[in-house]
């Protein structure tokens, strides 16, 4: 704990050099807290205090190394990969995903785009652990996602909807969000349709309030209860589990449609990257 506290400053400085972020993630969150009265945003003072020391910062640092290292059978680094703003350009890339990619003809979220980069550019087999292992702070995926996402800290969510496929996916996501099914008849609004609502002790974000929702979708985040950095896809899976519906498959078009819509819901609000959650 102490060791981390002591290291926090240099880490923030080192990352600041590449992140171009004017505000630290906790300052972005504080700005939202100051702008609106929200029990969701303020529910964990502890997390707010610990954010300068967020373990996700280290995961992101590992990701930086991994990103710039030549890897895979083709021995190339991810600098050769396009995350929407040209090869190797990461600044502001994540807040504009999911987006349509010409080279695959598909709308892709960050996780699927990393898979594409690993397999098609670096040459990893799709069953290689680097590609397959999606969860946990130690996974390549979480390291890379965290690093890439951090280059959008403080920037406004703005996933493009110009391409007809982007629009179609977003609109299908809107239907999925409202779609009730399963043993409990739940849709996402059952728990995320009102402000200040609690499921047991957790205060839930209201999907209709942008200031709430930007924090809700700011993944990767260190989940204190899991002691691991988690992704958007991991959160989706967790909510469907509580809804008594089956697991959504990571990288499925259904999951990307849902994430397209949930990003659209936070449009114009600043991303908190990396975030820290309960």
């Amino acid at each position: 704990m102490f060791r981390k506290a002591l290291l926090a400053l240099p880490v923030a400085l080192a990352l600041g050099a590449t992140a171009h972020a004017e505000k630290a993630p906790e300052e972005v969150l504080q700005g939202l807290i100051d702008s609106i009265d929200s029990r969701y945003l303020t529910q964990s003072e502890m997390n707010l205090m610990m954010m300068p020391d967020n373990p996700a910062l280290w995961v992101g640092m590992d990701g930086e190394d991994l990103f710039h290292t030549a890897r895979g059978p083709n021995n190339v680094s991810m600098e050769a990969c396009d995350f929407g703003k040209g090869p190797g350009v990461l600044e502001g890339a994540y807040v504009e995903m999911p987006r349509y990619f010409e080279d695959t003809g598909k709308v892709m979220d960050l996780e699927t785009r990393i898979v594409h980069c690993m397999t098609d550019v670096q040459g990893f087999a799709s069953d290689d652990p680097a590609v397959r292992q999606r969860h946990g702070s130690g996974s390549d995926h979480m390291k890379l996602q965290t690093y890439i996402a951090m280059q959008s800290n403080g920037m406004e969510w703005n996933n493009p909807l110009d391409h007809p496929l982007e629009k179609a996916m977003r609109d299908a996501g809107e239907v999925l969000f409202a779609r009730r099914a399963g043993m409990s008849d739940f849709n996402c609004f059952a728990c995320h349709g009102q402000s200040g609502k609690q499921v047991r002790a957790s205060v839930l974000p209201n999907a209709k309030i942008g200031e709430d929702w930007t924090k809700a979708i700011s993944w990767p985040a260190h989940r204190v209860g899991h002691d691991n950095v988690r992704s958007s896809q991991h959160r989706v899976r967790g909510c469907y589990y509580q809804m008594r519906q089956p697991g959504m498959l990571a990288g499925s078009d259904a999951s990307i449609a849902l994430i397209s819509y949930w990003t659209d819901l936070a449009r114009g609000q600043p991303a908190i990257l990396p975030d820290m959650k309960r």
Partner: protein
Amino acid sequence: MFKKKTPMAAGIAAFATILFAGGCAVADTGKSGQVDYTAMTPHELAEYLIFEANGGGFNLSQEMQEGGTARERMQQDELQKACSIIDDGKPDAETMAAIRTAAQESIVYPEGGIQLGDWKRGRELAWSGFGYRVGHNYDDHSVRDVGGTCYNCHQFATDRTGGNVGPVLTGYGKTRGTSDAILKYAYDMIYNPHVYFPCTHMPRFGSSGFLDEQSIADIMAYMFDPESPVNE
């Protein structure tokens, strides 16, 4: 039509026709057999992404506790369709009325009338969030009883922290009494709350088969028994 094994079919078909046209037209571009997402309505595309795209967007082959597979659990019954509204609005008045009627018809009362069971068991069931979860961590009903998840959304006795998605139920029996009318109201609410609140977010614990008769009686005892901490 009714692929789900719920006993709520009766009556609900009556308003099926005023809902979605049903069926999922899949547009084909002809381009290497690829499906054109942009040619579908958002609703068609959502259904396609759930059930068809690359074999389906969910783990559809997993077996469910109630029998059948996840594919069947993801299929909507008429109520779920009627209440799946963009931005979470309410359906029109005619549909709302049809939902109430269908809900009323779905309710099965215990032989010999509504009984209060064991409040101690009810206390645990009202608290428990166990049951019917599937996916990476499957609820095995042979090792534990299915709970009611009531505390997720309600506060009951204050010795445990409940949610506030639904109203506070602390002191429920004490303030409402135990007349036949109030017992029936509570039973109906647990069994199928759409009778009184069409498109509510509270689950249909009886109609869906989530809770059995004994568990409902025990949870009701927790709410109404004078000895229960709810009524302290």
